[in-house]
Structures are given as C-alpha cells and as structure tokens.
C-alpha cells in the first residue's frame, strides 16, 4: 500500500472535520499522489533515498509510555507544549501565562473555530508548486501549533514545542505542524524539539512555517534528537518581512535518515536571515540539509554557517542554494559549510549553489571538508589526555563556537551530550561548570 495510500485510507476513515478543511486535506493528498514521493533520480534528492521508507504501510496512532525523565528540555523555563505521536498532551504541557497579544492555539482548535484560516494554510501547503512532503503534511497533520504574535508584542520566555514520537507494531507516521505569524516589531524565540523513544521505526514528516511582519525578530531553534530507527523529513518555510530578522538554527543530532529543507524568502527590503546549522551523523546515520535563500527584494541580507560532522559510516549532505533575483540591488549573502570527517568510511557532500541575476551585491561562500588536526591530537595526548577523549574534545571544539552562540544553556547541553555519547568523562567535563 505504501505511505500515500495508507494516508488516503486514514483520511477516508476520519472525515470528521469542517468541510473546507477536509477538502483542503483531500486536495493536498491528491497533489502528493500526482507529484509522487521524490526519488534519487531527482537532482535535489540524489543522496537521500526514501523509497524503502515510503513503501511501508503506516499507522497513525499508537499508545506510548512516556519516560519523562529522559525527555530533554523539560526543566527549561519556557511556554511548553508537548505532542505525543502527533497528538497534543495536556498532561505534559505547561503553557503558563502568555503575554496579551500572543495567541497559541492547537491545530484542532483552529480546525473547529477558524476552519477557513486552517483551510487556507493547508491549501497553500498543498499548492501546485509545493513538495509532496509538504502536501502530505497538510493532508495528515491533525495536531500542531498555530501561534500568532500581535504587533509590538514581546515573548520573554521561549515557546518550546516538543514533538515526541514512538511506535507500535506498524511504523508510525507523525505529521507535526508549527505555524508562527509574528506581527510588526514583535519578538520571540521558538524551540522546536523532535525527540523519539523506544526502538520501533517511525516517520516524522514535519512542516514549520514562519511569517514575519515589518521589524519582527524571531529566533527558531529546530533540534532533532530522534531515535536511531527514525526517519525525519522536515520542512521549514520562512517569509521574512521588511526590516525583520529571522534566525533559524538547525541542530540535527539524531535520527537514522534525516532530510531537512529550509526555505527562506526575503521578499521585502531590509529583511535579514541567519541560517545556522550543526549536524552530527554517526554510525548508520544519514543527515541531509537543503537550504534555499531567495533574495527577492533589494537590501536583503543572508548569513549562513553550517558545521557538519560524520563518524563511522555516517553520511552528511549540505546543499545551500542562494538565489538573487533580477532587479534587486544591495544584496549581501554569505554562506559557509565546514565539515569534519572522523573516519575513512564517513562521507559529507557539500555544495554551494548560487543563482545570481543581479550585479549590485556582495556574495561570499566557502566549503571545506577536513579531518581532525594531528598536531592538536598530539598536543592533547602529550598533556595526558587519553586519545578517545582528545578526539571527542577536538570534535566538540569544531562546533563549539556555533554552540556557544546559543544563549540557552539547556540547548548547549543537549548538543554537548550528543558529542559525549559513549564518553562519560567528556560528558561530565562538558556539563561541568568550572568556568
């Protein structure tokens, strides 16, 4: 039957939504069916083969025993929403008191109270130019977050959205959705965390949409700590308003097969985006980032730094596209992709892709792939640091500057823990606060 037909059956079984929403879902499904799941024959997907994953039949719900103690970031002071296998869990959420002007609603709620809004969002997500996975998320997403921030409103604490997945007998399809509309001159930090438990495989197909109005400042941390059996497909669409700044930080630490598409439109003057990424592909992990920055308006700026590491037989892909549209001027676009290979079997393919149709711009890009520095290894060992720890210290050192720039220490710790797996000494060292 496969992914798409599993979903078609599920939609037939559960038509209990407003007509406009239901038909938007059906239309999105139809679009996905026509378009088909991308194959490795497509240039953009040549490194990432999903054919085996999407050929499976999927379940859409599963009971799950949650181990709260091992759920990261639960102690973070934040407005917290927790979704378990795609469904909202009130018991684990703690939204707290939101400032006036910040509206956080569940997708379910929007579906009943404001079906026209949801239908519009879903229809756009399944539009003819949308990817099959974007459309599939529109068809499948039952629960998720719709956050609207009014003009001039400032959210002091981060909005933390945790998507926890695990599965039963059949692999589970989880379709999280996160919508953020930031009004003029509003400010917020959003942490989106995808995390898994258990040993059964699941497929996360997530969709995040961030739209900012004039002068808004949004920081979005998107963290993947999925299990070693998980497939994670993530799409992030960012529309940056005039004089607005959106920072997206992708921390891809877990998952077996991961593909992220981060798509940023700078369609109004003065807009700026910062795209940061750190990924760590260990044994049997495949992590593929495709980013796309579309400079549609003059006086727009993009600044992108990705740091990738592959170990064991791990595989990383970075493809960074920068488009500068005709008729624009005063564009500044920088991109850097730095990569570290820790074993002879590891592989990282990095490719900057520039399409520039204007003259008045400053554009710089660079890509490197290297190995741990032998001199540094010897220096640490000569001081008495055992080789395994020296390697881990240098590996973490490779991303340290990027991680240190995150002003939320709990997120830094999450990254440090990833680097300290199988190395408790290093874990304590990185967690220890003797500075």
């Amino acid at each position, binding site marked *: 039957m496969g992914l798409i037909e599993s979903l078609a059956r599920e939609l037939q079984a559960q038509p209990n939504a407003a007509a406009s929403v239901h038909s938007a879902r059906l239309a999105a499904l139809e679009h996905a069916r026509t378009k088909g799941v991308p194959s490795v024959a497509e240039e953009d997907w040549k490194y990432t083969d999903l054919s085996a994953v999407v050929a499976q039949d999927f379940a859409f719900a599963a009971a799950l025993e949650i181990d709260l103690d091992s759920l990261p970031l639960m102690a973070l002071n934040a407005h917290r929403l927790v979704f378990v296998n795609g469904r909202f869990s009130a018991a684990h959420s703690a939204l707290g008191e939101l400032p006036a002007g910040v509206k956080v609603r569940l997708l379910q709620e929007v579906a009943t109270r404001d079906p026209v809004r949801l239908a519009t969002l879903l229809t756009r997500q399944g539009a003819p130019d949308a990817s099959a996975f974007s459309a599939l998320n529109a068809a499948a997403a039952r629960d998720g977050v719709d956050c609207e921030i009014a003009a001039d409103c400032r959210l002091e604490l981060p909005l933390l959205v945790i998507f926890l997945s695990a599965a039963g007998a059949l692999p589970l399809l989880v379709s999280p959705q996160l919508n953020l509309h930031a009004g003029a001159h509003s400010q917020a930090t959003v942490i989106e965390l995808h995390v898994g438990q258990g040993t059964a495989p699941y497929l996360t197909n997530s969709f995040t949409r961030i739209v900012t109005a004039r002068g808004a400042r949004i920081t979005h941390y998107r963290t993947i700590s999925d299990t070693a059996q998980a497939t994670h497909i993530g799409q992030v669409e960012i529309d940056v308003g005039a004089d607005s700044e959106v920072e997206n930080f992708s921390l891809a630490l877990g998952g077996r097969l991961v593909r992220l598409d981060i798509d940023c439109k700078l369609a109004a003057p003065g807009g700026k985006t910062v795209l940061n990424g750190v990924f760590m592909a260990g044994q049997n992990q495949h992590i593929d980032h495709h980013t796309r920055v579309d400079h549609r308006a003059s006086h727009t700026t993009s600044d992108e730094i990705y740091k990738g590491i592959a170990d064991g037989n791990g595989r990383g892909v970075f493809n960074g596209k920068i488009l500068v549209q005709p008729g624009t001027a005063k564009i500044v676009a920088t991109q850097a992709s730095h990569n570290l290979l820790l074993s002879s079997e590891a592989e990282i393919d990095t490719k900057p892709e520039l399409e520039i149709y204007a003259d008045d711009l400053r554009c710089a890009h660079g890509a490197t792939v290297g190995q741990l520095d032998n001199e*540094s290894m010897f*220096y640490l*060992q000569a001081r*008495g640091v055992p080789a395994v*720890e020296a390697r881990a210290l240098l590996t973490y050192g490779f991303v*340290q500057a990027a991680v240190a720039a995150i002003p939320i220490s709990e997120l830094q710790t999450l990254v440090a823990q990833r680097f300290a797996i199988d190395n408790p000494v290093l874990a304590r060292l990185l967690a220890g606060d*003797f500075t």
Partner: protein
Amino acid sequence: MLKIENLHAEVDGKPILRGLNLTVLPGEVHAIMGPNGSGKSTLAYLIAGRPGYTVTQGSITYNGHDLLALAPEERAGEGVFLAFQYPVEIPGVNNVYMLKAAVNGIRKYRGLDEMGAVEFLKLVKAKTKAIGLPDGLLNRPVNQGFSGGEKKRNEIFQMSVLEPHLAILDETDSGLDIDALKVVADGVNRLRSPQRSFVVVTHYQRLLDYIVPDQVHVLARGQIVKSGTRELALELEARGYDWLSEDAA
C-alpha cells in the same frame, strides 16, 4: 631517570639523529644546545612520542621502562611533559577543560580517583597566580589568539599544574622578551626538586643565566659532540657552533 642510548631516528626517511647518548639523573637540569637543524626538536618530540618519527636504532629508557613503547598520553601518565616550541592553537577547546581532562587522564593512568571540580579549580587558581597567567587566558580556547609570550607562559602554567617528573622545554625561550623569559625561568626554578629533572633545549645561552643547568650538551648533526658545565654555554655564545662541528669532523 632518563637514559638515551645510541639513538638513531629519521623523519620521512631522512636520518636526523645518528647515535645520540644522554643520561639524566633525578634532580638534574640538562641543557641541549646546538645549531638549527641539529636535531634538538626531534629529540624533544621523540621523548614525548610525537607520531611521524621513526627510531631505527637505540633506545630511550625512562625509570627503567622502554619509553618508546608508550603512547604519548601514557608517557604523560608516567610523568613526562613537553613544553612545545610552537604551542598548538586549538579553537573551541577551552584551556581549563583541556587541563582538567589532562589532570584526570594522568590520575586515571596512575590508578588515582578523579579530581573533583572544586579541588581542581582551587589548584588552577593557585597556579595561575604563581605563574602570573592573566585570568582571561584561562577560559579562552587553548592558545588561540595568544601572543607568543602568552603561549609560552601557558606552557609553563600547564607544566606547573601537571607537576611532571621529567620536563622537556623545547626552545621555550625563543621569541621571549626579558620579562617573559624571567617568568618562564621562575616557573621552572620553582618546580626544581631532587626528584624532578629538566631537559632544556635552547639555541641561546641567555635562558641559562636564569635556569642554571648541571650539564650542557652540544648537539650537532644528530649526535652530542661535546658536554660540559655552564661555562660551555658561555663559550658557545662567544665562539658560535662552527668550531665544534669542525672538531667533530
């Protein structure tokens, strides 16, 4: 403590050391001098265990063990320390983190419990003060953006925290002004004890005004061609190295 016998070594197939002999007893300070390219740094690296150096003949024995059989971190565990001529800059690795990993790596090697964070901080604070290492340097990435003098000071600071039994100083004096030189010398002199030995590799005798050696050796073309007391260093300063090379030839 350290016994080097008939040591022959090469780098990339090129012979550098050709039958070097050296014996250092506990508590002694030996100075190794010699012209550029004579093999001084090679000797220092061989003792510390840097990869890429091949011993073709001879041995290095340390406290009765075959030092060459040990990995660099095991040598550190045995109490060997090398102050690098060119300390490596390691972006992203905090000085304190590295030092804590080093201290506990060595303790683990010796079968001791790890040092706790509080005790460690206390130790570091005390040593920082003694060496006059600016506080700011401590929490920076290892040697990154340090001036030449700061790097050398950091080496001596690390040495004072790790308290080695045998310290090799590889041209620690090069590029230092007189004040920094005194700091380095003070750091070494403070550590001098009847159990601890030093091998001071230097190009100039200036350092030896402050770290007074028990023996001075001249290394030329891969061998020790002359040994003597402090006066030999002064003579070298006055006459250069050429007369010795001629002697040896």
